[in-house]
């Protein structure tokens, strides 16, 4: 546990050192902080509408103006960040779980299962997430679950496909063979030897998926199958104002800007993380590993 915390601290420190890592850390930190704050406080109450002061320009009272119902745009964006954070976290968890499941099947020692799962992943991967979401929306209506299931499924398949070569390499290695001959169970081998090997690839892929999930949220919500109306989210803010773009262009700018910055941050985060957790590109990690004596678990390169 202590080693894990030390490892995380080293990784974060080396990410912070470059501008390309500092920017996403700052944005993601702000995002998390604002999500928490919005649970207790927003500049204006979310549901306070005011028919006399719709489409106001930014002012001291309404920092980014008001929308068509007179609600405060800034407050809604603040509250939206927690919904988007929730969607991102849930989607990433679903994708990670599904991805690991498929990877486990694909590198399984049962050749029939391994072969079948490769074909299944290849076939399912071509189904666009939007179509899955639309089909799910027929019985479920607009809900956060639709986004999470559709995206988690699609990104999980992608993850499995990206991580497969690395996992296969590990599965055929000498240390796995020796573990198996020592009587290790399949699950033990998978979590002890294979997962650590694909972890770097997984983390990068998942942070890219997180960015795509934010984009998917805005798109699906606009199409009416994502976040239900009345629930604050960035996509909701974008979708409710977009119809009036020609009349009040200034109000429409903000939600899109927020989404773009968040997605850029998530993408950069993935890249920075990849550089920081790779012992080849990050000398600091090698030094730390030398000091604390990395355990012989097969992923020390």
């Amino acid at each position, binding site marked *: 546990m202590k080693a894990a915390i030390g490892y995380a601290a080293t990784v974060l420190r080396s990410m912070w050192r470059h501008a*390309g890592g500092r920017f996403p850390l700052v944005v993601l930190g702000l995002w998390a902080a604002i999500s928490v704050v919005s649970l207790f406080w927003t500049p204006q109450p979310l549901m306070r509408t005011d028919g006399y002061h719709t489409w106001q320009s930014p002012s001291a009272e309404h920092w980014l103006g008001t929308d068509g119902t007179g609600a405060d745009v800034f407050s809604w964006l603040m509250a939206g960040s927690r919904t988007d954070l929730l969607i991102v976290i849930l989607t990433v968890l679903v994708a990670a779980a599904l991805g690991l499941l498929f990877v486990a099947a694909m590198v399984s020692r049962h050749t029939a299962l391994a072969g079948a799962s490769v074909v299944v992943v290849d076939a399912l991967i071509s189904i666009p997430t939007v179509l899955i979401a639309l089909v799910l929306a027929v019985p479920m209506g607009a809900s956060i679950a639709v986004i999470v299931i559709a995206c988690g499924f699609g990104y999980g398949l992608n993850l499995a496909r990206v991580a497969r070569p690395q996992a296969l390499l590990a599965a055929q290695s000498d240390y796995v063979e020796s573990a198996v001959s020592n009587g290790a169970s399949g699950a033990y081998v998978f979590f002890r030897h294979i997962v650590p090997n694909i972890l770097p690839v997984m983390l990068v892929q998942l942070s890219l998926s997180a960015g795509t999930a934010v984009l998917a949220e805005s798109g699906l919500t606009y199409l009416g199958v994502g976040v239900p109306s009345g629930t604050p989210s960035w996509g909701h803010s974008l979708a409710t104002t977009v119809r009036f773009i*020609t009349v009040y262009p200034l109000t429409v700018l903000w939600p899109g800007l927020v989404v773009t910055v968040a997605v850029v941050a998530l993408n950069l985060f993935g890249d920075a993380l990849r550089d920081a957790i790779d012992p080849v590109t990050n000398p600091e990690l090698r030094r730390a590993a030398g000091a604390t004596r990395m355990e012989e678990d097969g992923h020390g390169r």
Partner: protein
Amino acid sequence: MRFVLRRLLLFVVALLAISVAVFAMLRVLPGDVAAVMAGVNSPPERVAQLRAELGLDRPLAVQYLDWCANLLHGDLGASMLTGRSVSEQVGVRASITFPLITLGLLVALVIGIPLGCAATLARGHRARAAYRLVSIVGGAIPALWSGMLLILLFGRGVGLIGVLPSQGFPAAGWGAPVQALTSLVLPALSVGIIVGAGLMRYTRSALGELAASGYIEMAMSCGMTRTQAVRQVGLRLAMPQMVSVVGLTFAEMITGVMVIENLFALPGLGTGLVTDVGNRDLIAVQGELFMLAAFFLLIGLLVDLAHRALDPRLKASIGGNEVSA
């Protein structure tokens, strides 16, 4: 030849699987066609009568075979709401969506490939970082937003340089070719920018891999400059891979342009599917989903075959069945 046969077999099997999946999915979901058609508060007798009329009281296998037989004739059934033939509807909508994604793909190619080459050739820390930022930001913009910004810039009546129509498709359709084409320009641009950023990333990574593998250095040691080597040798070597990516991108764009079609009020495939889902027009949704899925499979087949034909290196490798890259 064996490869082609095997790939064709896989296509047929996948098509069958998709037809079963689409058929089953809309049967498993609560609220069948008859219940939806009859309305929420209709008496059970009315629903039962409708069910008999539509043949929904027969065994599922019979219904499925019936549906398949109709599919072979190109008959996807009639929409529950409008009563019009679904295949006809799909045809009309496709005549808007396909030109739109073709235009969008052209824009993306014009943006993505030169920028990808330039990013590979860029020397120096700052230039590289700048290109990387362009590709990341380009891929991070929500389609809705890029469309809006373009409307604000060029939309007729509202934009700073208001020259292009930003809403709808001419009622005459392609009967008024100039108007039809101009109404597709802004949507194609807004989707093209985003897809272009993706293509730029692919071009860069494909060329980067080639450069690392020594082909480019070999060409340079034969007297080419770096720019010449990347453009003439690198691009040509990356061609099979790029054709695959462009093909799959084309397929993805069909659903990728849904938001754009909605924003610009173009009655294309995406807008249509969303409307039909909203109306719970199950017969139409079933037909459209099958058509879309079949199209994705077809593009996948063509891409694999083209990749194989374009890249002799694959034939040389033993077996060579790992094509679905």
